[in-house]
């Protein structure tokens, strides 16, 4: 039916253009008659627009659009209407070329009143358009310029419409329009239709309606119920959003802290250069990307996948090197290890600064990581953050697997529990130390790959995470990966919940103070190790 009408219209317009039929032949046409009013006064224009809209002729859309855009011309002599395109005037009814637009034409003027009527009329006309995007835009439009006159048109459009998204928007628009009705039952229906929306504009509309004088008690009750339902749904969505942001921040903290949980928790080494390992991982990602761009441009989408093992190897190897050359001399002297690794971090930062420059480096996100998933009207979830959460959990699973199910993990745990006996049993403890430190550093490097996707890759990237990661490890309980997991997500979520009330900075301060007080109660963190090993 629709297709037939539109095809007929196209045919009609085509005929007009091809035949260039004399104007007189169409003078009786209701459309041309109504359109002529657009050349008159503002009142004439409004009357003409209403008539055109009531006719439902698709030819009216470009005409009214031209009026709205200021492209409708009126000939000074005979008041003939023309539409201006590329400085050329075309006849408004026949679409015939009339010559240059600056030859004796005036722009048809509109005022705010006309503009309001015009917008509604356009919306109504476009609701019948064959173009899906135009119909959707129109459905939104009739919501914005509410008018009770639109009611039958929206109802008609809703009856015809089959696209679910446009239908949903039309329902909202219908409800919003019904609110304007005099009849309480219409308004009641409107409120019910709107209760399903979570658009803040709709909520504002309902609030306004509720506050208006002499509201029908039934309608008032329905309004209250609708607002209640909407508020709880919005709160729910906000909660989901906040929890997601918290999980996202938590996964970043988890990635940064996992390596620390190994070097600090398992080995007792305070590695202040841990943040720099993260930073080096991010720079490895950058270098891998540049290498792919230079030699394998076709596969550069997947350079990120390659950079994960690359970062692990680079930072892990560096970790082993540092352990062998420096850190092993300071075992059992944690305060001095702390100072020395701080010095290391300064040197590493300065090296990177002189190699890559002090400015941020750009690491592109591959297309399969970009984009967002909308969740209701108000909430979107970005894909790269979802990937980072998944990645963080994956890395945690791998570490748990390595410590629980491999020979190296067994040796690592044995050395942690009792170095002397482990050594007596033939475990090469020095090797285990080196590889444990390498593992911790390598994980930091992988964290750097993830961070390169959401943060600036600069020499001080690691600095911003080091204190937070230490807090996670201390909070979760040293030497306990589950503690690190729970600590990271808890801190992330608490941070994000505090943010709306206190701002990001104050939220962070609250969290720091809370941890300091928390440690009062449980000096060994959330999940304290028990037994004699603690007291050594």
């Amino acid at each position, binding site marked *: 039916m629709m297709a037939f009408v539109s095809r007929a219209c196209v045919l009609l317009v085509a005929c007009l253009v091809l035949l260039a039929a004399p104007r007189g032949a169409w003078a009786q046409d209701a459309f041309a008659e109504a359109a002529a009013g657009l050349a008159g006064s503002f009142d004439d224009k409004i009357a003409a627009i209403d008539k055109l809209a009531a006719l439902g002729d698709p030819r009216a859309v470009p005409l009214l659009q031209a009026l709205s855009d200021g492209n409708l011309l009126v000939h000074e002599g005979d008041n003939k209407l023309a539409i201006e395109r590329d400085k050329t005037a075309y006849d408004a009814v026949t679409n015939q070329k009339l010559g240059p637009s600056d030859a004796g034409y005036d722009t048809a003027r509109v005022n705010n009143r006309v503009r309001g009527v015009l917008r509604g009329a356009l919306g109504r006309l476009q609701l019948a358009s064959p173009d899906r995007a135009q119909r959707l835009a129109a459905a939104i439009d009739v919501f914005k310029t509410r008018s009770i006159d639109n009611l039958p048109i929206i109802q008609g459009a809703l009856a015809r419409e089959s696209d679910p998204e446009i239908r949903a928007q039309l329902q909202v628009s219908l409800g919003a329009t019904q609110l304007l009705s005099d009849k309480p039952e219409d308004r009641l229906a409107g409120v019910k239709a709107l209760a399903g929306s979570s658009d803040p504009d709709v909520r504002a509309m309902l609030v306004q309606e509720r506050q208006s004088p002499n509201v029908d008690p039934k309608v008032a009750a329905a309004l209250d119920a609708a607002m209640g339902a909407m508020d709880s749904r919005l709160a729910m969505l906000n909660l989901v959003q906040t929890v997601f942001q918290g999980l996202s921040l938590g996964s970043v903290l988890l990635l940064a802290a996992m390596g620390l949980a190994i070097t600090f928790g398992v*080995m007792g080494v305070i590695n202040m250069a841990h943040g720099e390992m993260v930073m080096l991982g991010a720079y490895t990602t950058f270098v891998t990307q540049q290498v792919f761009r230079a030699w394998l441009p076709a596969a550069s989408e997947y350079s990120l996948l390659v950079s994960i093992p690359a970062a692990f190897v680079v930072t892990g190897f560096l970790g082993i090197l540092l352990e062998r050359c420096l850190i092993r001399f300071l075992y059992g002297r944690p*305060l001095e290890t702390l*100072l020395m690794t701080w010095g*290391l971090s300064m040197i590493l930062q*300065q090296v990177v600064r002189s190699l890559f420059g002090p400015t941020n480096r750009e690491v592109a996100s591959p297309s399969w990581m970009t984009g967002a998933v909308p969740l209701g009207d108000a909430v979107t979830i970005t894909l790269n953050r979802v990937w980072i959460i998944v990645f963080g959990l994956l890395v945690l699973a791998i570490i748990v697997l390595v410590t629980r199910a491999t020979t190296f993990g067994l040796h690592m745990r044995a050395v942690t529990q009792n170095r002397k006996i482990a050594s007596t049993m033939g475990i090469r*403890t*020095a090797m285990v130390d080196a590889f444990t430190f390498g593992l911790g550093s390598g994980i930091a490097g992988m964290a750097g790959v993830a961070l390169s996707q959401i943060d600036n890759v600069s020499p001080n990237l690691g600095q911003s995470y080091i204190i937070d990661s230490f807090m996670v490890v201390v909070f979760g309980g040293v030497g306990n990966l589950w503690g690190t997991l729970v600590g990271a997500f808890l801190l992330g979520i608490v941070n994000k919940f505090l943010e709306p009330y206190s701002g990001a900075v104050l939220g*962070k301060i609250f969290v720091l103070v809370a941890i300091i007080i928390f440690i009062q109660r449980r000096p060994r963190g959330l999940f304290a190790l028990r037994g004699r090993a603690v007291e050594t």
Partner: protein
Amino acid sequence: MAAATNAARERAPVLLVLMGLALALLVAVPILNTLPEDSPYRLSDFSVVLIGKYLCYAMLALSIDLVWGYCGVLSLGHGAFFALGGYAMGMYLMRSIGTRGVYRDPILPDFMVFLNWKQLPWYWYGFDHFAFAAIMVVVVPGLLALAFGWLAFRSRITGVYFSIITQALTFALLLAFFRNDMGFGGNNGLTDFKDLLGFPLNTGATRRGIYVASLVGLVGTYLVCRRITRSKLGRVLIAIRDAESRVRFLGYSVTAYKLFVFTLSAMLAGIAGALYVPQVGIINPSEFSPANSIEAVIWVAVGGRGALYGAVIGAFAVNGAKTWLTTSVPELWLFVLGGLFIAVTLFLPRGLIGLIGLGGGAPRGLGLDRLLPRLSVPKVPKPRRGDG
């Protein structure tokens, strides 16, 4: 132990002569500054301010040495106490600008007028009196250290845990002071000072005056620290450093001793900050940055912890090197500083004074491994030859 003390006593005259010489040099600085412009021995105003700054750094180093070198409490947040003392002094200097500010408001400092504040916040009251500000210089850092130390020491947070938490403390303060609505000038801090006690800050005489005050402050701090460390109290502190649990089992209240020395040290750091601010003419949140605090720790480590003059020597040596390097080869400075951290911890556990055989105050090896009796550190026999 007794042998070490005897050895120190035998070296005492040498030490006294050296210290007297150093003091004489420091006293000479403002005198040389008063010489006529064309004299070859004249020290520039710049040098007076520079050495004055070093004096303040040395005071900060002393305060760190008192808690770290003698009591084994490594605070990575002493810069916070220094900065708080500095802010207290800065607030006085801000109030004494009066109507000479850009906006000519008799009461509100410029930045408050700029932020469209109508009233002075309550915590700025009283800072128009020097005496009040001077009290606040010690009271504010002291109270913070008292509260923080009480919380930490009571639950026996020791070693690296304490270090990390103090670092978090100064980091939290850094973030807080960056906020404009804290009422401390936000990012820009407090600056554009005009005069101190009515003396204009930009004259040579005032600079010399502040220099002398700093020198007196340093000598005073040194004498206070010396008095404490030589007393019976000092012996208990060293005992806590070397074997905390044993001291506790002997019936001493370790918490009270630590709390006392930590609070005192914070107050000394506050005074150092207060003397520092009128010399540099600005105090801003970057003074709270954890890097500053840890850099101050390295002065002590380089000089030699556990000996008071070691801290002073370290502060002068490292900052002298910093001034020289950052002007001649700026890109090298961070390498040198980082290298210092590594070299000192690995090769010079007793610092420069250990190198020249003066480290009588510090017991050999310092027993740092014993400072962390409660951390789950794998106990490793220190020379790990033949391991595995």
